[in-house]
């Protein structure tokens, strides 16, 4: 088994795709010479040259707008926002333009682009460098939304994103880049399929991105105490595979959604509501939401940690869920 990091898997997907498809260009701040703030595009300038790996000025709105225009005319841009927090500067281009162009123009023009960024806590980045903003994009019709948790998914989801004809928001987690794992090149679950990462019949934990690993660790501990949790990794938030989730909840009767984004009106609200809608008759307890606190992220490492779910809290919450 060869071990690869999440970061390398992403780079591999970009590289393999660019070798295959000459219309792919990368643009963003520091993606070239610097190799990306988190090193994802390191070495790619050397292989693909300045025409295809493009350092931009610090102009988020025009980075995304340029990607939109390029995508409309025949390129397949991969635009990078260094932190997802900066999407606040490009929401018009993402939401009012990229996501709506196919629709507004009656299906004439697609916008095949990938917007890569990274979010989440873990580096004391404070309130403007640690957010998880995927709920905004999930709420925007016209966008695909992928949030890989594993090395293999980092590769395959990005590969697939680079074949779609619509905009894909591709959100990585800053805490996963150095994570190692096996990259299984042959296997690829279809786009939009959730993956059951661990089987279990007592309760269902639904998650994505970094929190999947927290759930798996928690499930291991719970197992020692006789509780078998099923862990589902959504992989993409659009399309959203509720079938896999509902099937599991129909067996366990107990569900908990674990996300890093702020709880109120976040992703866990949607998943929770959907579980109720699709598996109401099976639910023995309300679906629980273990999400980020409804606060800006504080810089203090201790407070930061406390502001999002931890393995311990997943364990204790699962026990509460299982108590009767």
């Amino acid at each position, binding site marked *: 088994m060869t071990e690869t990091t999440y970061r390398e898997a992403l780079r591999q997907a970009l590289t393999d795709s660019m070798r295959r498809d000459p219309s792919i*260009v990368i643009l963003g701040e520091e993606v070239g010479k610097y190799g990306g703030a988190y090193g994802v595009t390191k070495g790619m300038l050397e292989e693909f040259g300045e025409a295809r790996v493009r350092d931009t*000025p610090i102009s988020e709105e025009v980075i995304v*707008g340029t990607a939109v225009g390029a*995508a409309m005319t025949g*390129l397949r841009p991969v635009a990078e926002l260094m932190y997802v927090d900066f999407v606040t500067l490009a929401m018009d281009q993402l939401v009012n*333009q990229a996501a709506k162009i*196919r629709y507004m123009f*009656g299906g*004439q023009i697609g916008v095949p682009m990938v917007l890569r960024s990274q979010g989440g806590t873990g580096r004391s980045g404070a309130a403007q460098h640690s957010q998880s903003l995927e709920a905004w994009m999930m709420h925007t019709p016209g966008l695909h939304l992928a949030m890989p948790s594993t090395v293999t998914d980092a590769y395959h989801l990005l590969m697939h994103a680079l074949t779609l004809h619509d905009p894909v928001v591709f959100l990585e987690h800053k805490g996963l880049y150095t994570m190692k794992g096996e990259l299984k090149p042959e296997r690829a679950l279809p786009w939009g399929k959730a993956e059951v990462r661990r089987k279990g019949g007592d309760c269902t934990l639904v998650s994505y991105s970094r929190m999947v690993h927290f759930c798996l660790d928690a499930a291991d501990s719970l197992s020692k105490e006789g509780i078998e949790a099923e862990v589902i990794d959504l992989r993409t938030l659009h399309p959203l595979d509720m079938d896999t989730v509902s099937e599991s909840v129909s067996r366990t009767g107990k569900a908990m959604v674990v996300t890093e984004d702020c709880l109120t009106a976040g992703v866990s609200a949607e998943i929770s509501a959907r579980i109720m809608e699709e598996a109401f008759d099976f639910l023995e307890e309300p679906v629980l939401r273990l999400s980020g606190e409804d606060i800006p992220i504080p810089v203090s490492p201790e407070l930061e940690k406390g502001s999002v779910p931890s393995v311990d809290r997943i364990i204790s919450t699962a026990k509460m869920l299982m108590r009767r």
Partner: protein
Amino acid sequence: MTDQQEKQQALRFFRQLVRVRIFEERVSELFVQGGTAGSMLHLSIGEEAGAVGVMGAMREGDGFTTHHRGHGIFLARGADPKKMMAEIAGKSTGYCRGKGGSMHIADRGLGHLGANAIVGGGISHVVGAGLTYQMKHHGNAAVAFFGDGAMQQGVLYESMNLSALWKLPVMFVCVNNEYGMGTRLDHASASLEFEKRAETFGLLAAEVDGIDVFEVYNQSKNLLEDVRKGNPAFLKVNSYRFHGHARMDKSPYRDQQEEEEGRKKDAIAFLRDRIVKSGWYQETECDAIVEEVKQEMDEALNHARNAADPGADEMYEDVFDPQTTKPFPVDSRIRESLHLPQA
């Protein structure tokens, strides 16, 4: 240009200018008759020369985006007035099947990358189109049309900078009609030195009086030559918005004298005068063109009136590539969760 060429060009320009004017008048009628989709209709009467002059200098393969006041620009590009009018009416035979409307007309074939209802929203798209042309279709240019109001949107300056930095074949055309809604340009911008400003972002820049379509054409042509070589440019076309901001606005914030003066900047009258005075054509020949255009536009109007509304289920189409994912209708979802059969 030889005199003969100029003469023919003049007549072509005249027809185009008149087409824009009369098209907009018909849009206005459609509105009055309750036939448009909504009231967010922005007529480009008074700005015809900007549309016709710049478009005259563009080539097949060039791409462009427009602002919300873009009917004339698209028409000058060769749009089918029937499909335009139908789109403005929100009908299924419109350019966007009744989904976009006046502010979101587009046509891939003609290189129209979209009208935009966000002031400044389409400007950066031409930077991207310019990038595509630089990499794949050398020689093509991408042109953004926008109003004077967009001069106050930051994205314009980000776009100028990136175009200059990457030497993209991009032209920024400010259709200056002196107003952004009720705000006169000098109440929106502290400085009016827009050309100088564009130069400090690394662009070529020029200004032209929008009364004279030939001038607009010539300036555009000159700039576009450099643009195609990778020197992005900025062009300001000065004109006046003859009517209100949108169809319902009577411009109470403007005084009459100013409006009268402003409406003298009439590119059609100006060109007609020149055509006749130069002895190129007779008044009657001009009149004949006007009549022809009227008929063309009446037909467009009739077409729009009689065209069908889009079918209710089309609502769910075109959100995504049809090969992939589709919206889950709200009612289906509810029925599913209640274990009821689908309607």
